[in-house]
């Protein structure tokens, strides 16, 4: 593996591996969230199980490292590619119809995803796992005080607000575009592709991105509808 990560392909390999890890985490997170629709108490049990246990903390650190590397190399590659493109730009550019919008705007879409994550961390992770790590057994949620492991209470609180519902749905749309290109692009970069599998992987990427985003969106919409029914 001599100097592989200093090459342009090696840097892309880091993006692919970290991206694949993040996508696997999203799949797990989405499946976990769906439990909240089935039975909120079960979801709280999962939150308690994953709270400050050593394996959850290690997994969080690994995930944070992967996420950091993904962002760092996205920045490095974007700057590197801008330099390669040169300072003179075309006066007119017609993007071929075979080229997806997502593939041309992965960095900007990634920025939106990262900004959405900051909001998500401040609303959920900071008041849940981080609060537990700091030894807090109670956190304030609006006017109420709840346990950091009461995940369903957090979901119910934030997704009773239409503003957060819209922001999270927009965030999920950005995530869909990011995964719909990133999924097959990661496999292409690692060399797992050929003429036959190229269209299949592109299709699979869209299906996978749709399943992930629909899963997350289902929880948001369900809890928003529940909040409307509860108040009327």
């Amino acid at each position, binding site marked *: *593996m*001599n*100097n*592989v990560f200093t*090459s*342009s*392909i*090696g*840097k*892309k*390999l880091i993006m692919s591996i970290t991206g694949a890890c993040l996508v696997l985490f999203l799949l797990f997170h989405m499946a976990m969230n769906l439990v909240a629709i089935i039975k909120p108490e079960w979801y709280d049990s999962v939150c308690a199980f994953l709270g400050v246990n050593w394996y959850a903390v290690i997994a969080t650190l690994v995930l944070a490292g992967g996420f950091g590397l993904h962002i760092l190399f996205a920045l490095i*590659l974007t700057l*590197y*590619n801008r*330099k*390669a*493109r*040169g*300072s*003179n*730009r*075309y*006066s*007119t*550019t*017609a*993007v*071929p*119809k*075979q*080229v*997806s919008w997502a*593939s*041309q705007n*992965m960095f900007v879409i990634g920025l939106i995803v990262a900004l959405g994550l900051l909001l998500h961390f401040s609303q959920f992770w900071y008041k849940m796992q981080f609060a537990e790590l700091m030894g807090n057994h109670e956190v304030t949620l609006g006017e109420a005080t709840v346990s950091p492991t009461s995940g369903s209470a957090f979901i119910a609180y934030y997704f009773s607000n239409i503003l957060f519902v819209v922001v999270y749905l927009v965030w999920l749309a950005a995530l869909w575009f990011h995964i719909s*290109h990133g999924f*097959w*692009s990661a496999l*292409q*970069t*690692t*060399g*797992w*592709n*050929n*003429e036959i599998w*190229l269209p299949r992987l592109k299709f699979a990427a869209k299906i996978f991105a749709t399943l992930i985003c629909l899963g997350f969106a289902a929880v948001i919409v369900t809890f928003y509808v529940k909040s409307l029914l509860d108040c009327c």
Partner: protein
Amino acid sequence: MKFKIKIWRQKNAKAKGKFVTYDIDNISADTSFLEMLDILNDKLISEGKEPVAFDHDCREGICGMCSLYINGEAHGPDTLVTTCQLHMRKFKDGQTITVEPWRSAGFPVVKDLVVNRGAFDKILQSGGFISVNTGGAQDANVIPISKKDADESMDAAACVGCGACVATCKNGSAMLFVAARVSSLAKLPQGKVEGAARAKAMVAKMDELGFGACTNTGACQAECPKGISISHIARLNREFLTAKLRD
């Protein structure tokens, strides 16, 4: 047919360029794009003006010398053709046609529409060469090669090295060009022997010359006049990464 041709004019590599618009008429629909530029140059010369510099050679879509970014597309609006095979019937009468040189840090402008594509030669040189005693013509079946492998190799070997892939890539990446070269040899038994060394050397040279990293947009494949697939880029990635793993 008549056209307004908006062309990038730049005296030399260091000068600042600008667009100049020329009117041209009495152009047959069957005139090729380069013939149209020839007619324009004749007109400019007769008026005592500097003709437009542009690259061309075989005018048969084989040599890869012609370039030009026409109305926002490498080699113009037609598909699977080089600029020399593009005809004026692909444009509307009276249309304004914008003609620019390839724009990439790896291809600096020499004059007007001419760019220096010498970087491609350097990448090819870095890939090394093979020398064999050819002797008498061998029987075609001495080294069996499957039809599938031979076809894939030939598809990659169709690359004419025009640079449309670099010109059209938002990252100025030369991955499709390097992939075509590596892939055409990697699929054949003769090329496999030095396959690992070739992939490493060509990628290293590509990076050294400042070409960008591939983000798999597929724009290169869409604009390639020879229709070379980005699946060859996957093969280059595979060849390069496995070669590095063996180090």
